[in-house]
């Protein structure tokens, strides 16, 4: 389908979103990612039964942690996208990209740039 989406997106492949760990997401922010989103199967259609529901909980938990330490929780999101739904994939990428653009660079990066050790 080759639908265009913003070039700010980099994909890390997991067998199931159920494999995602809070550590992975927090580490991405610590290293300076401006946003993270987890793209899994639609709810109720998880290839591994219910991994996506667990991932959703972890994303929500990570969002709370981010809020607590002063990083906007909106920088993390969970999406359900059917494997055949290219248009939705591109739409989600745009949506996330625009949200992050509105938020600006991650506060972590700002701190890092100021020379505080990460």
């Amino acid at each position, binding site marked *: *389908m*080759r*639908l*265009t*989406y913003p*070039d700010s997106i*980099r*994909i*890390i*492949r*997991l*067998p*199931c979103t*159920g*494999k*995602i*760990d809070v*550590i*992975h997401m927090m*580490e*991405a922010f610590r*290293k*300076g*990612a401006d946003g993270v989103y987890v793209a899994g199967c*639609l709810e*109720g*259609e998880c290839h*591994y*039964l*219910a*991994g996506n529901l*667990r991932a959703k909980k*972890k994303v929500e938990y990570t969002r709370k942690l981010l809020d607590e330490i002063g990083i906007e929780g909106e920088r993390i999101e969970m999406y359900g996208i*059917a*494997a*055949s*739904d*290219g*248009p*939705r994939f*591109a739409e989600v990428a745009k949506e996330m990209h625009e949200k992050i653009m509105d938020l600006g660079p991650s506060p972590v990066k700002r701190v890092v740039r100021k020379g505080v050790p990460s």
Partner: protein
Amino acid sequence: MVVGGGIGGIQAALDLADSGFYVYLVEKSSSIGGKMSQLDKTFPTNDCSMCILSPKLVECGNHLNIEILTLSEIESVAGEEGDFHVRLIQHPRYIDVDKCIACGTCAEKCPKKLADDYNTGLMKRRAVYIRYPQAVPLKYVVDKENCIYFEKGKCRACEKFCPADAIDFDQKEIERTIDVGAIILACGFQPYDPAISDSYQYGRSPNVVTSLEFERILSASGPYQGHLVRPSDAREPKKIAWLQCVGSRNTRIGNKGYCSSVCCTYAIKQAIVAKEHSDGLLDTAVFYIDIRTHGKDFEKFFNRAKGEMGVRFEKSRINSILPGRDEGNLEITYLNGEGKVAKEDFDMVVLSVGLDIPQESIDLAQKMGIELNHYNFVRTGSFDPLQTSRPGIFVCGAFQGPRDIPETVIQASGSAAAASSLLSGQRHTLTKEKEYPEEVDVTGKEPRIGLFVCHCGTNIAGVIDVTEVTEYASKLPYVLVAEENLFTCSQDTQVKIKENIREHQLNRVVVVSCSTRTHEPLFQNTIREAGLNPYLLSMANIRDQDSWVHQSNKAGATEKAKDLVRMAVASAAKLSPLYRTKLPVVKKVLIVGGGIAGMTAALNAAGQGFEVILVEIEKELGGFARNIQRTLQGDDVREYVANLIEAVNHHEKVEVLTEATLAGFSGTKGNFKTELSVGPTMHHREIAHGALVIATGASEYRPKEYLYGEHESVRTQVELENMLSTEGEKIKGWKNVVMIQCVGSRNNANPNCSRVCCQQAVKNAISLKEINPEANVFVLHKDIRTYGFAEDYYRKAREIGVHFMRYDEHEDPIVERADGKIHVTFMDLALAREITLESDQVILSTGVVAGNTEDLASKLKVPLTSEQFFLEAHVKLRPVDTQSDGIFVCGMAHSPKTIDESISQAMAASARACRLLSQDWIDVGGIVARVDPELCASCLVCVRACPYEVPFINDEGVSEIDISSCQGCGVCAAECPAKAIDLLHFEDTQILAQISALLEAS
């Protein structure tokens, strides 16, 4: 040989190839996938059709023992069972499949545009094309009929621009003769063409579409990218009508007297999905004769549509469809449920077209000498649903009768079982096996990475500066070799990769090209051939994830490619080899339940050469079928069951254990251990076996309502059936007989339809009229569900004067004693008033309820549905597998079904079990979770989190994950609070390495 590359053919081919047979899969179009590939969603779960089909396509395409012959048609079949000679014609593709890399340049440059049949003409395609992006084989094809070069003698634009030199206009038709032992017909159906009749405005109004066209409209890969708009003006419709039974249940137009069985449920699905597209604002109405949601859990789906989704259902007869008041709209005039004329305007009309047999299948049957029935479906017997009239040729799917995807998959596996039994002596004689050199030990060695960047013609290089990326990559840590190739997937590049591995003693390989989904197996194979463990490969997808989606941003795409390469290299450095362990398979199957399903599975598995233990809880074999006299078609069930019992008892490979119950169960697929308590003395037996089939059947609902058990003239259909042959004289005296449908079905206690009762009522009603034509027989029903060819008998019953009357589903009939007679009072929906029938006899069509399944389910650790039937692993594509590998289910234990359906499913369960037993070893391991016992705190989080119930606390008091059961999802690893579990190949260190590589350099 399997004929037809739809889901039926694919399943049959996979089952056979995995069971030790070499399979030719013949497909007339350019790719496999069939009708299922065109569907948007599948009922009743509304799963995405392509998402579940695509892995099967890939598996089929990559299978060493499946030879896919596309663009091929069978000319003749000589010889006999076990030794057929099939002559077929392979039409030219005009594309060299060894060279085509499916980059799409040819289609881009092709000047000819025409209606795309895959998208039911709603979109355009070029004269050189692939049917759909996930097509297998993923090779373009020149459509000769529409190619300008073939028409006018010049053009060849595709040839000029093809970067792989793959266009070959000199290809000729090839004639081949192939020798095969058995043939399976899986030719499928074509949707009924409503243009045959001019009564639907089809072809005149673009807003009247067939259901298949509507699937494409809904599909994200369809003409409107998944936006629900109507064809005439691309406006979002506000009201859509579905018209049922177009090309079904109609003997007047084109001899379509049968019910197509699937249209009611797919219309419900489409209405629900359409509503979801419009945030529920859309008004949807289904115009129907009877709603036939007789499949497993379909009634709940119907109830959901009616209830929370607000889909309207109009019991009706359509009078006319005419242009509506507003431009593009349509006005439907119909007789409503009460027989009154009503009119309504709709923005769009979907015709729920039936399943039809294409002329080419009729011709094929004739060439093969196979009998068809009066509707041109393959003729089969009540007890031989998969056997055609020519020995050695079997049939499955919609060519045998109208059916849905799971029923097709069941029959496909079943026909594979039949063919396997026939050819069991030849198992493993023709199959190929790959041999690889011994693996290089890389443990403890510093990574030495070779990196290969692909131009993919201009697909990548046209956007990304490949040379810059390659140079950048060569400076990354551990990278010894970085090369660029025009096509990394081409044959010569594989040779180059292997040479590099040897020359530079590479111990990791990174391929920077396209998707792992399509190309990982190829490169894994290549490095394996050079002595590397296949898991030492890492890929960066700079095509699908980069050049294809950032075409207008070359600089950004090149920078992104560098990031992706850096991540892949970082991940590669952390890769470890993964090994598979071989476990021996105990070549014996244990079957629980000795009814028709259990005995059929036993005989087939024994026929395939495996030992069978058949366990029956009762004293005698036979199960529920002992209560049934005849099938709807009039075949003798008692005789059939007696013969089956005889065959099972005398088969040298079948051991029958009666009065036997399961006392204990342990082990994993290939190596189960079952403890049984056998016989009146309940002696203990322990049996080792490799597979298990559940065939425990179901029970008849015992009514508490309608004076049953209180009045001697109130009986069940089964009781009536037993009287028919023995007490004819008594029955002759009955003047008025009332049958009540849905007793114990489609109510709050049991929301599902029991599937068989309508046929049973029709069967017994016809018998009553035959015994006494003067008798009045009334059948009180909610809907009559005589799906498939059973519709013929419903029609016959009406013709001979059986009265079918619809009662209000919210108000059950009232049955009362009255002066030796019985009064049955109900609200008649057609007459819209209450009616009281004075009857001599009341016959209750009692439903099917699950047997006592809970104990067995908990011992086997397999889940049940909320109605206590065994739950299959996947409702569409794994209908006889359970979630526990090596345990299969068939017959009524799965859901209510007729005898022929039970037989098909039993054959399927046998196919799946024997597929496992035909392997000497099972390969386990690879990408599985591993527990570090040092770190495990035995907290049980993994035990609870695993969706497959694999982890357990072992004798050492720590969690253990059995590698033969682990599915590799990684949920346990993510949940483990002590980080004691890692998912191999996706270890935390590897994921974190990618995150670091991505972010640290930026």
